[in-house]
C-alpha cells in the first residue's frame, strides 16, 4: 500500500490520466495550485481534457499553461478572468466553459466526495444559473436543485503530507483542495514537504489519507503572486 511516487510524471502515469479525462485541480487564483502536476500533464501532452477548477490560471501560469498548448477542451469554473488566451479560445469556440457559482461549485464537489447525489441551494434562484434545473420551495423560500460534480482524477496541492497521504494545507492555499481530494476517483497530492508517517499531529490533519492515492514531494515551486498588494516596508 505504498502511495509515495517519485514525481508528478510517475503520479499521472500510475494514476492512468488519459486523453479526454475529467480532472479537478485545486487552487484559488494561483494560490494552492498543483504546479508540478500541471507541468507533468503539459509534458505528457494529454489532450481533450476537462478541468474542474475555480479559475483558469493566467496566460503563462497555472492552467493557463495547458490552454497555451490547447490541451483543455472544457473548463468548469466560477471565474475565468485574467487570461487573454482563455478569452481568445472561448470567443473562437475552441473552448467550452461551464460557469458555476463558487459556493455551488464547492458544494457540488463536496457532495461528490460525500455520496450526496443532489442537494438544494438558494444560490442562483431566478437567474440563468437555475435555467433547466428543478426548483422547489422549502419553508416558503425557493431553491435550486444541484447535482454532485464528479471527476475521474483530482490533482491537489498541500503544504505538508505524510506517506499515508494525510495532508495539511497552509493559510488560504487550502481553498478547493480538500473537497477535490475527496471527490476524485483517483487523487494525486503534491506537497511542499513529504514527511514520515507519524510526523503530523492527527488533530491537525485537514485531508485524511484515505482520499489520497498517490503522493509526492513537488519541486521548484514558483508560487506566483497574482496581485501583489502591500504597504511600504516596515521601518527597521
Amino acid at each position, binding site marked *: 500500500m505504498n502511495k509515495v511516487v517519485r514525481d508528478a510524471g510517475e503520479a499521472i502515469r500510475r494514476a492512468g490520466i488519459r486523453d479526454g479525462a475529467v480532472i479537478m485541480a485545486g487552487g*484559488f*487564483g*494561483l*494560490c*494552492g495550485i498543483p504546479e508540478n502536476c500541471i507541468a507533468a500533464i503539459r509534458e505528457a501532452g494529454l489532450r481533450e481534457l476537462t478541468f474542474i477548477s*475555480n479559475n483558469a490560471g493566467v496566460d503563462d501560469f497555472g492552467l493557463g499553461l495547458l490552454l497555451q498548448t490547447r490541451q483543455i477542451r472544457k473548463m468548469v*469554473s*466560477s*471565474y*475565468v*478572468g*485574467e487570461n487573454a488566451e482563455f*478569452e481568445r479560445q*472561448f*470567443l473562437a469556440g475552441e473552448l467550452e466553459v461551464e*460557469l458555476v*457559482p*463558487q*459556493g*455551488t*461549485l*464547492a*458544494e457540488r*464537489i*463536496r457532495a461528490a466526495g460525500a455520496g450526496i447525489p443532489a442537494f438544494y*441551494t*438558494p*444560490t*442562483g*434562484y*431566478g*437567474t*440563468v*444559473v437555475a435555467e433547466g434545473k428543478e426548483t422547489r420551495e422549502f419553508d416558503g423560500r425557493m431553491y435550486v436543485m444541484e447535482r454532485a460534480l464528479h471527476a475521474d482524477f483530482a490533482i491537489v496541492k498541500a*503544504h505538508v503530507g505524510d506517506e499515508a497521504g494525510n495532508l495539511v*494545507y*497552509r*493559510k*488560504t*492555499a*487550502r*481553498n*478547493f*483542495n*480538500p*473537497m477535490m481530494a475527496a471527490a476524485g476517483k483517483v487523487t494525486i497530492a503534491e506537497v511542499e514537504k513529504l514527511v514520515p508517517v507519524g510526523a503530523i499531529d492527527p488533530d491537525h490533519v*485537514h485531508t485524511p489519507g484515505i482520499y489520497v492515492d498517490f503522493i509526492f514531494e513537488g519541486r521548484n515551486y514558483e*508560487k*506566483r*503572486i*497574482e*496581485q*501583489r*498588494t*502591500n*504597504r*511600504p*516596508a*516596515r521601518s527597521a
Partner: protein
Amino acid sequence: MKSASSRERIVLRAARELKDGYYVNLGIGMPTQVANHVPEGVQIILQSENGMLGIGPFPYEGEEDPDLINAGKQTITELPGSSYFSSAESFAMIRGGHIDLTIMGGMEVSETGDLANWMIPGKMVKGMGGGMDLVASAKRVVIIMTHCNKKGEPKVLRECRLPLTGVRCVDRLITEHAVFDFDDGRMILRELAPETSLDDLRAITEARFEVADDLREMV
C-alpha cells in the same frame, strides 16, 4: 459631483453600515475600500470567501505570502484570531446565513431589490465567482454603486436589463445621491444627499420608490 468624490461619499456612507461584532464580506473593488473607514469603537471581522476569517491589512513590502490572499487575489495578512478553512466550509458559512453583512458593487438594481452585477454588457462573461452565493444568503445585503452609468443613464430600474445575480436579494442600496431600503418588494427612500432634491432624484431614477416618513439627510 465628480466621480471620485461620489465614490468617496458612497464608501464613507457604506462604512456606517458596519456594526460592532459584525462578520462582514466585502466585494471586490469599491466595497473593499469600506474596510479603511470602520467607525470608531466598532470592531468587525472580515470574511474572505476563498477560506478565511479575520483579514488583516496588506503586508509590508517584501512580506507578501503567496499562500495568503483575499478573494480579489490580493496579498493580505492575518490577524490574531484569524482562521482558515476550505471553500466548502466558507460557502457553508455564507449559505448558512452566518455572514451578518455583505457589501457589494452593483451594475443595476431593480425596484423590487433584484440585483445584476456579474455580466458586463459587450464584454466576455468571466463568471459570477461567489457573488450569487453571497447575495442569496448573507443576513444583510448592501449594494453600493454610482446612481447612473458613465453615459448618465439610470442604473436604478423598474426591472434589471442585465442577467440577474439574485432576485429580491438587496436589503439596502447606497448611491452618491441616496439610500434606499427594500422591504418585501417595496422600495423606500431613506436618505437623500444634501445637494440632491427629490425631483432631481426622480429624474435620474427609473425605479418607483416610496419616501420614508422620516426621510433623513444622507451624511
